[in-house]
């Protein structure tokens, strides 16, 4: 099993969600995060005093999928989140050792 994590632009979330649904990925976890990569922040001015805001708001998407589905998930996620402009984000994959469905106690791929 793999954990696929994507940091994406917030407005692409709906597209990413429907792309993963079409692929048959059941469920996802999202969180609002802030960060920066190559995309610069922005400047705000209050009564003439300038403040540089380095961290840009992003959404982190996390899904755990079966090994066979991992590549397709990465591809679908990246395609849906792509605008071609700087700051589109990153997607990465990490191995998952074990997984348990809390309600039934099922383990491994059955728990997905």
């Amino acid at each position: 099993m793999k954990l696929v994590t994507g940091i994406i632009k917030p407005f692409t979330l709906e597209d990413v969600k429907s792309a993963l649904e079409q692929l048959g990925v059941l469920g996802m976890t999202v969180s609002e995060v802030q960060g920066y990569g190559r995309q610069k922040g922005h400047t705000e001015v209050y009564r003439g005093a300038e403040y540089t805001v380095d961290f840009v708001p992003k959404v982190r998407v996390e899904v755990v999928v079966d090994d066979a589905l991992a590549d397709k998930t990465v591809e679908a996620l990246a395609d849906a989140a792509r605008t071609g402009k700087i700051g589109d984000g990153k997607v990465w994959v990490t191995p998952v050792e074990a997984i348990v469905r809390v309600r039934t106690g099922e383990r491994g791929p059955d728990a997905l």
Partner: protein
Amino acid sequence: MDTGDTAWVLTSAALVLLMTPGLALFYGGMVRAKSVLNMMMMSLGAMAVVGTLWILYGYSMAFSTDLGGGLVGDPFEAFGLTGLLGEDALFGTIPATVFVAFQAMFAIITVALISGAIADRARFGPWLLFAGLWATVVYFPVAHWVFDFDGENDPGGWIANRLAALDFAGGTAVHINAGAAALALVIVLGRRQGWPREPMKPHNLPFVVLGASLLWFGWFGFNAGSAVAADGVAGVAFVNTLGATATGMLGWLLVERIRDGRATTLGAASGVVAGLVAITPAANAVTPVGGLALGVTAGVVCALAVGLKFRLGYDDALDVVGIHLVGGIVGTVLIGVIGSAAAPSGVDGLLYGGGTDQLWRQAVGAGGVLGYSFVGSLVIGFLIKWTIGFRLTPEDEIAGIDEAEHAESAYEFSGLRSTGGPGLARSAQTLATAGKE
């Protein structure tokens, strides 16, 4: 007694009272989320303390028979207001108590205005003590100087009568007074932890807009009510309170557009207040077009003045000096330049061929209040600092003054954090015990 005048001044008094909670929102939105409650409590505290003192002896110090030199009224003559309750106790065409109520609101908001300069760092108890002492030693006498016109056996205040400087609704007594006190307290208390290195952005600009709107609304009572009559003078003051405020906003936004590239919401709200401050002394002294000119001047000058604190190194957190002191001086002094005999006060300024006579009177009035308020506030401030202490500890300030001084937080977003806690546990226990019995 005139019932129309009485009804209008009663209404105006309520309008002016609303300005102080409006100010609490205006200031509260500009501080960080961890100190909004304390910011608002400083305004509320001014309402409580000054409202009480005004009834006891404040009104009497400001408006009773002059004790000599036009400096202060007799604090005992109308102590507790009992002597003003009869049907024949009148102030002009209105009952004396109605005038007491109207002027009370001016005393309250003047004290509240100061608080913006010392945001995030003043302990609440010492602030209340300062509010009471400052009202007594500075505001009540200065209100006497400026607002107490001479009567039959009473020479009244020196600025209103002997100097004859024009101040319709409090450019000197309210704004220069509060602004000079703010500058003094900034010197007494020092900078906030991290200023100016750390960003201290306003946490809620919609609050600021709501507050500025309530201020503008209430200010119609402040200025048009200062006619103390429902008449044409009130009408002129009302129109000028619209015009100067409109151009005050335009002036501030213009500076921002040129200097910073964008017109901001905070700039619009600030320009509104700058325009209102400047028209306050001049509301009956300039023509409507003069009001427009005065407003735009104040908007531009104040927008530039708020940047000075960074050069001079004074942490006037919410720019009370840059807006109220500077705007108050602009409005008060420019009466001597653009005052027009066509307006109700009937005095021509320099531009209308009146020469420099009114100009120097205005400058002396402004300077007199500025100097007295600054020195008086320094003395009261340092007295509090050296006895009971004025400032929060650095640790409490960094954690947030709301938690340290009031044991509250303004915003509770996290469901996880709201569970448990000794308070909840205690009341839950009480309920459980009560149920068993």
